[in-house]
């Protein structure tokens, strides 16, 4: 069927049981030093246009000529529909919400996923839960890889100018998820 999709859902279910650890607000605005994360986001293999690192976690893939993988482009689009009204253009933060491009790198995939699904509160600073929003959940991997790419400075601000085409697998997963 769709091995990749079910793997992701399983991971999400597992991570929802984990306690939310050390998600101090101050993490969010700490800059990322890409050198300290060298290799973490390197693509080890791909499954019909979806890239994974050596630990089987989704990641971005930017070619020498700047062409980005489809999920990174898709993440750019969905981020700027669902998230940027708080976290600002290109994940750069606003007057009241953190630079989420850095959060994606610091938190890593599982914590990031958990906070988007379940939300969190710190006084009057509130991240909503998006667990029941298909416009976010069906594209959460995309949003994550896009923001990780921004945090690692692997893609510049703005709309990616060149992208890989949407693959059959991506199309299939999207249709199944969005209904």
């Amino acid at each position, binding site marked *: 069927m769709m091995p990749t999709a079910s793997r992701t859902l399983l991971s999400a279910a597992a991570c929802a049981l984990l306690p939310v650890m050390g998600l101090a607000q101050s993490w969010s605005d700490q800059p990322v030093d890409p050198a300290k994360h060298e290799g973490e986001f390197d693509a080890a293999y791909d499954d019909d246009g979806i890239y994974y690192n050596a630990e089987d976690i989704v990641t971005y893939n930017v070619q020498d000529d700047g062409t980005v993988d489809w999920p990174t482009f898709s993440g750019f689009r969905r981020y700027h529909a669902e998230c940027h009204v708080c976290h600002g253009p290109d994940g750069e933060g606003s007057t009241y919400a953190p*630079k989420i491009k850095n959060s994606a790198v610091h938190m890593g995939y599982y914590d990031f996923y958990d906070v988007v699904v379940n939300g969190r509160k710190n006084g009057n600073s509130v991240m909503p839960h998006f667990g029941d929003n298909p416009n976010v959940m069906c594209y959460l991997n995309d949003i994550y890889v896009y923001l990780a790419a921004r945090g690692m400075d692997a893609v510049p601000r703005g*709309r990616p100018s060149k992208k890989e085409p949407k693959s059959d697998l991506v199309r299939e997963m999207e249709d199944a998820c969005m*209904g």
Partner: protein
Amino acid sequence: MKKLSLFTSGLALCIATSAFANDDLIKQMNDPAQWAIQTGDYENQRYSDLDQINKDNVDDLQVAWTFSTGVLRGHEGSPLVVGDTMYVHTPFPNIVYALDLADEGKIKWRYEPKQDPDVIPVMCCDTVNRGVAYADGKIFLHQADTKVVALDSDTGEVLWEAINGDPSKGETNTATVLPVKDKVIVGISGGEFGVRGHVTAYNMETGEQEWRAYSMGPDSDILMDPENTTHLGKPVGPDSGINTWEGDQWMIGGGTTWGWYAVDMEENLVYYGTGNPSTWNPAQRPGDNRWSMTIMARDIDTGMAKWVYQMTPHDEWDYDGVNEMILTDQEIDGEMRKLLTHFDRNGLGYTLDRVSGELLVAEKFDPVVNWTTGVDMDPESDTYGRPAVVAEYSTEYNGEDVNSTGICPAALGSKDQQPAAYSPRTETFYVPTNHVCMDYEPFRVAYTAGQPYVGATLAMYPAPDSHGGMGNFIAWDNIKGEIKWSIPEQFSVWSGALATAGDVVFYGTLEGYLKAIDANTGDELYKFKTPSGIIGNVMTYERDGKQYVAVLSGVGGWAGIGLAAGLTNPNDGLGAVGGYAALSDYTALGGQLTVFALPD
């Protein structure tokens, strides 16, 4: 000027004959020593008769006193001054302070509502609140979570509460309320969450709901009479709130009502505008999507619509129609007319006859506006009153999953809620504007109650081939439909203007400056940098023979999102990134009232 005062006394006379609870408010509004309503008056002119501070001495202005609100998010709206008391509000958690002006601003009382912080992320674009209202010894607060509270203006005691909406469905509030006659008229926010917009009248004494008018839906919901409610002079006909929608889309149709409200007591009408239709993906909602993007004129007592005008049928750019309606009485072709002037997000400045709803003027108030070539002004035409849309900038024509580039203005509009001012002395409108363009790519979205329902991605940048800044402060002639002069600003001007009989116009900037300019020439006469960026509205009052000017600082709102890190133009290619000013290089969060006066 003479004609205006004639009209005003006529109005006072007319009111005196009807014993309504808000006789008190009208009396307070007519006293220029006070600032009794957010909009300055029912006409939304934001004009004060005070002239102690004038164009010749305003450069001597000094800070008289300051007050920290204790809250660090976007501060829109302004304080009120009624009697000896100044009422200062804050963004979420929506604290209200009553400051005793007779006792050096000592806090007489404060009110802090308990609200579930879960409402915060349901508010699109920061937790702003555009201020409290006063009438009949009561202060009215419309909280973020849509609870409307009436407080005793002397003690802060809660007199009644009403629940206007459901935040779990994305219904929230950012606006002030309008006290008029025996009612408090209240709007709703949530256009980005698929809320169906409505306006509701509550009884001023009891808080009981008296009428509610939705922006779309069956005639009984939208309070329109198919025969007697008119659109550009013609009856709207039956089911006008449904028959320009496909299927049930109207049920999540947007058209929220978070702007400013105006009143003509003589006509017994309340005026306001409705917001964008949901979603931002026009392909998912074929049709004109009535009555989103519409100027409404409704009967104060019954809510029944007398006339409507839809400015942007089938919106494709998020050009909400909620901006203020400014009511004036001016001469056109030798005839005195009762006018309504409105600066829309879509970049067009409209002048209408506010009695009949006849469209008189529709012209661009920023020359870069390019999505339309103009409005059809021929009453005989099939497309009378409609803007002609340029295909290149039509996100509907270009379709889903296509990035339409170079559209001016951007979604935040040539002007957003930041209210303009009008001086009857110069017959000029003073308009804070945005000078920002965008790329807009719509795509399919699914609706989930209480979740964002947007369906478009967009990139914004300063208007190309212009002065490089993101705003202008303009002087507008509403009869000719022309800009008289324009002051370029580095950032969008997100502060409400104030015009005075001293021929001075005041406004704030996002860097935090309070600026005073000459009402005739636009020459800058004074500026002072307050502690944080200004998105509040300038007000004035007089106490013990001394005129004061006050404004809230506290950067945030839509402006604090897009401009915090600076904008980039994706069409400039690599290397241009960071080429535009970042607001974070000029100011930081704050929440402060600064009050100015001339030296003793």
